């Protein structure tokens, strides 16, 4: 029996409010990092003038990932700011001159009439498109494979409670998303495309149905409103009924988040790098929860002041990302990066006492990757036993810690085990 948990969506609070745009932060702080704390080298120095869209950094290793400025103005040096994983990273501080001058390279670029796969991948590389759902992994890698791709899936199932960026983006940009999906299918070439929407979101479904008539190969897939249904493994195994070993592309499938697809759309149509991002600012402590489009590198403090701040309480948490997989941040000195999809500020709800684990096995039942977290926890000191429990499969979704009736931080044990086994 699969224990199915519907997480209280808590999404309503941010959906109904109008989407705002914060165009004019005085300074932006572009983080020189990619997911998992990979350092990127800086290509500008203090006093340089940069256009909007100028490449100011580059990922160091074999992946090609440029980092673009999101405003035009003067570089003010390199400062330390908090990144969404709670650690300090160096950011390029740029003073905004409010002129929004685009880089000449972008203005000159022309889109070909018929895209080839090579051109498509080159464009993704140039524009620095990354997985916007949270991973931040360079997107071109997914498409740059030798296997023939049969299916493209647009993942619009947003499992994280509170966060609504994907929902709002799909509601506003349904036409563009379909257009982009169709284009990608033509380029790859893929036979079919799917758009995954959570069950019960009728308004969203109708929005797509309005336009879907012109695209006979695109279908809407309904996923159950569960937390884990947003994971690509869930979509592959339960909605498409395909088993894969490491990456979905083994079976000729590419799964992309909605906001990634939208970023691809902008890259293909306007040669526009990822410079803006819609994020959800929500939670019980936020005065006016809403979705807001901000520039990459905006200070969270500026955003909070702009939308009206939060209720200052004694015991509150600021979470970068959703409450399940997000990280609690020690201060609001956080910058918006391209893989941040929301900020939740809420009263601390998890100060439960720790009780002895009673091996009830609820974590085993719920684990989406078939781990046995309780056994991993008990074998934490025994490396040989850890080996066969395979903690490296963990996707760190946090369901084991969520469900635990004894409120044990099961995920932390699995994370530790994961590190031990990899070493």
């Amino acid at each position, binding site marked *: 029996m699969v*224990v199915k948990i519907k997480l209280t969506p808590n999404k309503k609070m941010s959906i109904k409010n109008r989407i705002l745009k914060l165009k004019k932060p005085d300074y932006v702080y572009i983080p020189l990092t990619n997911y998992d704390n990979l350092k990127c080298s800086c290509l500008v120095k203090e006093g340089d003038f940069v256009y909007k869209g100028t490449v100011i950094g580059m990922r160091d290793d074999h992946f090609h990932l440029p980092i673009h400025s999101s405003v035009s103005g003067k570089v003010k040096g390199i400062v330390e700011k908090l990144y969404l994983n709670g650690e300090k990273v160096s950011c390029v501080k740029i003073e905004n001159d409010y002129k929004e001058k685009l880089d000449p390279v972008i203005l000159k670029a022309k889109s070909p009439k018929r895209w080839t796969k090579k051109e498509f991948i080159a464009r993704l590389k140039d524009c620095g498109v990354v997985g916007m759902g949270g991973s931040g992994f360079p997107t071109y890698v997914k498409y740059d494979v030798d296997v023939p791709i049969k299916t493209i899936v647009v993942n619009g199932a947003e499992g994280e409670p509170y966060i609504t960026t994907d929902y709002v983006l799909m509601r506003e940009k349904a036409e563009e998303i379909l257009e982009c999906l169709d284009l990608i299918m033509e380029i790859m070439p893929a036979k079919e495309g799917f758009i995954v929407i959570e069950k019960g979101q009728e308004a969203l479904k109708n929005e797509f149905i309005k336009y879907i008539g012109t695209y006979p190969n695109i279908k809407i897939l309904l996923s159950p409103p569960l937390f884990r249904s947003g994971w690509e493994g869930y979509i592959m195994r339960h909605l498409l009924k395909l088993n894969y070993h490491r990456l979905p592309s083994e079976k000729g499938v590419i799964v992309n988040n909605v906001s990634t697809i939208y970023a691809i759309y902008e890259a293909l149509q306007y040669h526009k790098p990822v410079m803006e991002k819609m994020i959800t600012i929500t939670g019980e402590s936020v005065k006016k929860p809403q979705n807001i489009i901000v520039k990459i590198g905006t200070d969270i403090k500026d955003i909070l002041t702009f939308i009206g701040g939060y209720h200052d309480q004694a015991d509150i948490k600021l979470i970068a990302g959703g409450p399940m997989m997000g990280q609690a941040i020690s201060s609001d000195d956080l910058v918006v990066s391209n893989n941040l999809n929301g900020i939740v500020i809420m009263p601390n709800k998890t100060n439960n006492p720790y*009780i002895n684990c*009673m*091996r009830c*096995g609820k974590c085993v*039942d719920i684990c989406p990757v*078939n781990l046995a977290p309780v056994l991993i926890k008990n074998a934490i000191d025994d490396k040989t036993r850890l080996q066969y429990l395979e903690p490296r499969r963990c996707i760190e979704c946090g369901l084991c810690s969520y469900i635990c*009736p004894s409120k044990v931080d099961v*995920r932390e044990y699995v994370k530790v085990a994961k590190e031990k086994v990899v070493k």
Partner: protein
Amino acid sequence: MTKFVVDNGPHIKSKYNTSKMMNHLIIALLPIIIFSCYKNGFYPYFKGYGTLFDAFKPILLIIVGIITSLGSEILFACFFLNKKNELKAYLKYSYAIFPGLFLALIIPVHTPFSILIIGTIFATIIGKMLFGGFGNNIFNPALVGYLFIMGTYQTAITKAGGYLSKMEIDTLGSATPLTNLGGLNYLDTYHNIVGPYGNLKDFLLGFIPGSLGETSALLCLLGLLYLIITKVINWRIPVIYLATVFMITGAIGYYHQLGLWYPLFHILSGGLMFGAIFMATDPVTSPTTPYGQVIYALLLGLLTVAFRFLTNYPEGVATAILTMNMLVFIIDRIGAKVRFNLRWLLILNLILFMLITSTTGYIAFNIKKVDDKDLSFQILNIKRQDQQTIYQVTHKAFHGIIKADITINHVDNKITDIIIIEQKEDVWSQIENADYLKKIIHNQADLDKLDTIAGATYTTNYLKQMAIKVMDDYHKRKEEYK
């Protein structure tokens, strides 16, 4: 600057917690507790059996169990764990009442309080605290206590009255259904196995002899339903356990041409229902992996049947659960492995299937139906003389048969003499000490009311039956001679 709380995610957690689970467990147990107090205490009292103390004995046993369990854990925590200052916080999450409560529910109603107290202390200290307290014990504490008192004080409990309430001793004789089944060599008619206790409906409702909390299968099933709905336990262990016992005994019954009542009798009698639902599912001592739970439950069913049929202890549940508790460690390893590697699953299922079928086959071929004509009662010879008739008869006994010469006087149509020619009973000395044969002759007018000897219940019952059957036959033949 730092004003936000930083800790590990997830930052929301389910509302479910261990204390709530334990509360649900108590709610599921409440109907069973109430029923056991009614059936073993008040009901016989209202029917005119036993004293007022006897009426309150079941509830007192349960209270004493809980208090002892709580007390011994407090003392242990204070003196060995140095938790004197944080006792309240410690007790809140150690769920100390359960070993005593469960132990009280699985012991015979006539258990002396002193034995219950000793058993509970043993269960709490040895079964739970020495392993490291709640969550760390390998064996089910209550069953550890149960096995201890059953191993050490069984005779004392039997002497004090054993399993049957005072009313049941009077109306039903002196055996629980499973002891009766063992005495009948496991195979007999519905009339002899279920008949003495009413019908299967009584088994379902629980108006049969047995330990305090185990008799009502219906309330146990309701408890199971409640626990599954509230997600305290998973359905796998209890359902597969019961199904396994049902299938194996069903197969044995089918082989010996018994009806569906036979497997039903097996799952409804003894502590199986209570054990499968409340003891085998104890999360601390059962496997956590889904497939591990399946193996665990299958083997539990197999062991229970094996203990019932192949040993002298007809109640196999407690021993089976404790044996399997020991193997949980290995089973979980297998269960975790199977989650990634489905090839294992096939091999393991094959092994389990072969194990179960071979055991079933072994039991089915090796138990033999007791032939009514052969063993139960057979007249070998009738010698009619002037004044008396001498019957030479054999009657089924606990071990083999009893062969006897019974002399009946023609004048007053009464048994005047019983001479035992052959017997293999191991409790025969008790019969001789009590001069039971003389008692039979003395009380022959109303043998039903003659008490059996504790410890030699079966033999005494068979002797009584033998006398009754001889008298019946004598009266039948007397008509013919006329």
